[in-house]
């Protein structure tokens, strides 16, 4: 186990005891990643803030939702942020009947210069690996995965937007996940 993961486990254990310093430390470690993700998905500061707020509060109120036997705290927590952001953007979409978000998937201008958060060396390295792994995907797989993950689209909706059968969306999603899994587990071993 990495030192990073060991520290997260210790912080999580303290969280269960209601230790506020542990909460602050987890906030310091992951609020930048959480907000960056929530902002990419919701595209609005206010919504992103609510997502991150709710995720941290959920971790504080029900720390036992994380089961150390099933993965790392970091991936658990960022998945929680992802789910909440996707739910938020779907609700917003339904409320505002928003259209033409497909063109909007690309990172916004200036977004990349906003990397002003101090993060651990490991997180910075992992971020690089994840981006590189995404780059290795065939464009059609990457498109489907990014529409789902960062766009918050359902597979049905992706099929409509791209004019392809839902079955194709499913096979591309699985193919992309398999390829990423291979790429990242190799990186992980090397690192």
């Amino acid at each position, binding site marked *: 186990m990495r030192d990073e993961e060991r520290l997260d486990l210790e912080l999580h254990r303290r969280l269960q005891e209601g230790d506020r310093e542990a909460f602050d430390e987890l906030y310091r470690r992951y609020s930048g990643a959480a907000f960056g993700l929530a902002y990419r998905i919701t595209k609005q500061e206010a919504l992103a803030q609510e997502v991150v707020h709710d995720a941290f509060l959920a971790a504080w109120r029900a720390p036992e939702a994380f089961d150390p036997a099933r993965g790392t705290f970091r991936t658990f927590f960022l998945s929680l942020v992802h789910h909440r952001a*996707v739910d938020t953007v779907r609700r917003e979409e339904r409320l505002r009947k928003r259209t033409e978000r497909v063109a909007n998937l690309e990172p916004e201008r200036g977004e990349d210069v906003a990397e002003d958060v101090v993060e651990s060396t490991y997180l910075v390295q992992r971020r690089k690996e994840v981006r590189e792994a995404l780059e290795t995907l065939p464009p059609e797989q990457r498109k489907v995965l990014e529409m789902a993950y960062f766009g918050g689209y359902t597979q049905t909706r992706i099929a409509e937007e791209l004019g392809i059968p839902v079955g194709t969306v499913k096979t591309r999603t699985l193919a992309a996940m398999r390829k990423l899994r291979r790429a990242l587990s190799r990186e992980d071993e090397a690192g």
Partner: protein
Amino acid sequence: MTLDHERILELLAGYAVRSLSGEDAAEADRLLSEHVPSCASCRESLADFQALSGELALAPPSRMPPDLLLPRLHRELEQRVVARRPRLFLVAAAAGVVAVLGMGALSVGLGIRASNGQAKTALFADALRTANRSDATKVPLISSTGSRGMTEVSAPGLEHVYLVGEAVPPPAPGMVYRVWFHSTEGWKWAGDFLPDPGITVLELAIPTRVDEIRITEEPEGARGNGPADTERWSATFLAA
């Protein structure tokens, strides 16, 4: 092995990135409760996909949240000291209700009394009386939209809890707010409601060992076996 594993893996991959809907989501739920727990290969794939979903979170650049967020969280952390105990109580009370009402009462739709019509004044008075008890606990439900306005009120010895909201925004036309309980038995529908213009009060009997109350916004009438992914408020309860 007659199951088509490639198809199962497609569903698990879609599930991990939260992109399933309709029939696919229902089928994934079935798989997760029936097949996956007993299939080592599927369990491993699911764990991998979920971990991957957490890793993908790192692709966007990290971004500093507004300075006010941490102080705001700090204010709300205070409430857990109070909130921990009622959750324990709530679980204990739930067991009591089961004993009193018997298994027959565990069916869906049990005991939701909404604040519509004549009953409103009496119900609000009940809730207020409970809230004013010195041993009462008040837990704000976490809103997925940022709108405040739903608080759970409970007190020892009561067989129900109140959800009290002020200026709860109405759902979209044709939609209702739908209340769900989650326990080890899965999701159970508790009832639907529409908020009142001023104060909204709901009285909920807790059907069984509940670990989460979730309120979603869903189309009136059409109801699935579990909450739609349109969560508006929720409260997670700690296990005893």
